[in-house]
């Protein structure tokens, strides 16, 4: 926290500085990426960008070096937001046209209330470690107290408690190590359920939630069955459930906005990177090696659409002409039509593509390794293969 305070001080200094543009820039002697304001950069749309989304009519994309860019329509140039951190943002989501959240590396969560023009840090990795420490200290204490009350009448419950206690103690140890080491866990996805309820997930099974619009954040890791501490990579929601998917084929579902989670039968043992609920209410789940699954029954059962190109699939969105578009590594852009046929194109850049949106004019805006890539229409990409549903 000492470091954090010191940087908060430095930040106030920097903020005051912004009021005096003529003055010389402050000297930074002990650089900390979490507190360094994002540089205003002409190449912001060309750096690594991870996600792109809508806030009302506005499009917003996030990525490396604290870059958040936005534009009100796709014939306008990108503008860069004012962001008080320089970490790699991994995800962004909006409650409405104004309120949104972005999460990223070093445990950073940032929020906006003006449609993405300016952002404030709501949580950083140092605070996050303290939250974890307090949370798991309390949990260990609570579970230890419960253990004391056991009289041997229910060995199964005792066993479960023992495991929970063990996990909590391990998590506490990790928090204590992190206190020494500094924040190492990135958040990998954020889902805004309402202007009050926000969920974020990340590395080693991190799950954090706010129910007060980000004023306070609560550790939820122990409500998901993830004894091996696998990464949580993706979140999605429909009217009934919130879905969570991650490393090693894990899929979960919550009916109470993330308070409790049930583990679903996974159709695959490899990692998942993207989740999406389409306009028809189908749940899409995509991941390693061209694995694409679709569930028409909220995750009870899945059917597979296998891509011949065995590359990672990262994201899915609704297609203008029905069905869904999906993007993946090595420049893969696919379209699964309503009949379930997949058309697979490769963008010439060969870049890893992580997210996309469809614009009003039907064109696609894709983000990834090389920043923003504009695609006038799906069929304008070079076609490589076509595969039928298996």
């Amino acid at each position, binding site marked *: 926290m000492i470091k954090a305070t010191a940087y908060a001080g430095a930040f106030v200094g920097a903020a005051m500085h912004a009021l005096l543009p003529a003055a010389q820039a402050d000297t930074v002697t*002990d650089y900390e*990426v979490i507190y360094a304001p994002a540089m205003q950069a002409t190449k912001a749309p060309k750096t690594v960008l991870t996600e792109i989304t809508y806030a009302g009519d506005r499009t917003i994309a996030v990525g490396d070096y604290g870059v958040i860019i936005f534009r009100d329509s796709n014939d306008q140039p990108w503008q860069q937001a004012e962001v008080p951190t320089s970490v790699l943002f991994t995800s962004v989501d909006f409650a409405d046209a104004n309120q949104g959240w972005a999460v990223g590396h070093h445990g950073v969560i940032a929020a906006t209330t003006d449609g993405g023009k300016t952002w404030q840090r709501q949580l950083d990795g140092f605070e996050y470690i303290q939250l974890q420490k307090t949370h798991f200290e309390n949990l260990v204490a609570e579970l230890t107290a419960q253990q004391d009350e056991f009289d041997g009448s229910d060995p199964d419950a005792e066993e479960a408690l023992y495991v929970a206690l063990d996990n909590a103690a391990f998590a506490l140890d990790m928090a204590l190590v992190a206190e020494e*080491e500094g924040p190492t866990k*990135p958040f990998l996805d954020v889902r805004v359920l309402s202007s009050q309820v926000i969920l974020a997930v990340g590395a080693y099974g991190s799950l954090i939630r706010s129910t007060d619009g980000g004023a306070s954040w609560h550790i939820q890791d122990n409500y998901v069955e993830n004894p091996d501490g696998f990464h949580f990579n993706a979140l999605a929601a429909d009217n009934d459930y919130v879905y969570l998917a991650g490393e090693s084929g894990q899929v979960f579902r919550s009916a109470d906005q993330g308070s409790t989670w049930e583990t679903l039968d996974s159709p695959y043992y490899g*990692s998942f990177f993207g989740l999406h609920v389409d306009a028809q209410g189908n749940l899409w789940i995509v991941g390693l090696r061209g694995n694409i699954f679709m569930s028409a029954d909220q995750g009870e059962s899945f059917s597979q659409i296998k891509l011949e190109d*065995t590359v990672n699939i990262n994201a899915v969105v609704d297609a203008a002409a029905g069905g869904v578009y999906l993007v993946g590594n*090595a420049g893969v852009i696919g379209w699964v039509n309503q009949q379930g046929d997949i058309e697979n194109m490769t963008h010439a850049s060969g870049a*890893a593509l*992580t997210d996309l949106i469809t614009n009003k004019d039907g064109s696609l805006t894709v983000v990834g*390794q090389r920043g923003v890539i504009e695609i006038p229409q799906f069929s304008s990409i070079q076609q490589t293969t076509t595969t039928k549903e298996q």
Partner: protein
Amino acid sequence: MSEQSIETKSVWLERALFNFRPLWFVMFAVATAFLAWHASMVRPEASFTKMIPTQHEFIQNYFTHQEDLASLGNVVRIAVETTEGDIFTAEFQKTLQEITDEVFFIPGVNRSGLKSVWTPNVRWSEVTEEGFVGGPVIPDNWDASEESLDKLRTNVLRSGEVGNLVANNFKSALIFVPLNEINPDTGEALNYQEFSQKLEENIRDKYQTENVKIHITGFAKVIGDLIEGAYQVGLFFFIAIVITLLMLYWYSRCWRSAFAVLSCSIIAVVWQLGIIKLIGSGINPYSMLVPFLVFAIGVSHGVQIINAISNNRVDGHDKFAATRLAFRSLYIAGLTALISDAIGFTTLMVIDIEVIQELAIAASIGVAVVVLTNLGLLPIIMSYVGISPKGTEYTRKAREQDHPVLTTFSRFSQPKWAYSALVLALVGVTWGLVYSQQLKIGDLDAGAPELRPDSRYNLDNKFIVDNYSSSTDIFVVMAETAPSQCIAYDNLEVMDRFTWHMENTPGVQDVKSVVYVAKMGSFGLNEGNLKWFSLNRNQYVLNANTGRTPPGLINPDCSMVPIIIYLNDHKAETLQTVVASVNAFNQQYQQEGLELLMAAGNSGIEAATNSVIEAAQTKMLLWVYGVVIVLCLITFRSIRTVTCIILPLMLTTIMSQGLMAVLGIGVKVATLPVIALGVGIGVDYGIYIYTKIREGLAQGMHLNDSYKYALDSTGKAVGFTGLTLAIGVATWIFSPIKFQADMGILLTFMFLWNMLGALILIPALARFFARFGKPIH
């Protein structure tokens, strides 16, 4: 005048020379034979360290890490282009395979680092449920079938080599050829010229067809082409000799004296080369200009002697007396002029770049040698052979009618013409001042600035820059840390900030370093999930992420990592912006234990050179003008006279700067000395002309008549001298080496313009001062 009276009026120098003619002749012959033997061992060389300002901070930093940086830069790239379809055809792949194999066996190639689609170290990889899988880009069961070609296409896309080894448009493929500076087997240094020739013979000549085009770039190729180009200069020297001989004959109509002047001037060149070899200095593509200058200076002074001798012959002296009298009348003017040349050249020593210093030494030696050969040997030879009767007759006839030089230039001492000339000169100065504001420092053209923009090398270079995601203008910042701290998280995080800061600097295309490797490593090791493209605070994770760092991106004890900044071009503004941007970052971010030092890479070194050149430009002009003004003051002891001589020179300097701006020639290692050379030689004309004007005035003549007298005695020779000097260097304009051509253009302009300036502006200024100042004398 009898022989007796000639002897009595002679000075000791004259007696020493003419009373022991056979002895001197033998001594000159012996010295010439000895020095010719040494001169024959002079070879053009292109030493990299001599072309850079070794005392500059950037270069010192570079030298400190030179060994660690060696594996970075010395690379040749060979692009194999197909003009039909794309590279995924059986035929093309066969050719590419053959070329790759051929390159593998060229001595000097670092075989383990050799990369092309056909080398096993170029691999594709992908993440599976079990981890990484991958293989060589060429499918294992390659049989050149459609299926194999399809697989190859897929593998290429997954290898991340599009833009590196495969062109963005899939119409060409690249062979990346790192070189060993020192042959690990024999310990011998790489012979660039030989290597470059091998590339031509074994690759380009052998594989270039109608459908397959070969493009080769790299430092080794530039050096090879430079040395090859330098040999062509020998041909120019021959051409200059032939033209000069014809001009000498045209001027004197006497083959004997023409050959005598030519031989003495060639002997001066031989001596100069021999002495350079003896003192252990070499000849480089820059100082190659010096033999031309020495030759031309020799000829111009020789002409003065011949001119005087034939005048004396017409006056009725025998060949011996005519020569002695010519020597007597000219040796002071000649010595003064040559000494001022020599001293003018030595002012170049203030520039801390070895090639320029070598050029200064070579030129000073050359001028000193001309004193001996053309003021010593030439009169001795002429006293034996004499002017042919035909030549004497021609001189006699010429004296009876007004010489064109006389009729053309004598009017400039009359008020009307004088003031018009001065007004035109003012216009010229204004033009020069306006355009010289746009004068740029450094090299302005793309590619290898040493060679012409339309040279094969630069066309090849343009091809590769256009089709691949790589720039050939590289600026390297060296990040210095304590040993084993080069990839410590805190250091990498600042370097990452620096990377982003530099990427957003105008003129920067891309920035690559171990930071990029670490972020790519994190991306790769986390199942190819781009959301992990970041540095991790956990040092063990960072170490794992940087495990695949290619050699050269971290030094052996991990105390230095190069940060490679790829630039759009190497224009001076671009380099200045980059340097300023690095300085701004260093001022704002001060991380203990991490220093970001400039600069290596061709652009880093050019930035250093530019800053030295920029500082030296004014310093050199002050020195050369200072020296010339002091010499003139000593000779003439009149500020007004010195003004008359110096102002035309300044006009030429200013106008040549304007010309440089208009022609897009920057101030650089090659062109900076040219201005000093121009001033140093240009002042000769002024000295010769003004001496005679003053002589006329002293005899009570009016300005008009004094000037006519000056034109009659030395004016013709000055006109001829300007022409011979200009022709001697003008052949350079055709050099395949760009900077030699630039030097040729500028020197030709300066020699002609200085000559015109002396013949037009000196009388005009004298008229101006006579009208508005106190009368002269």
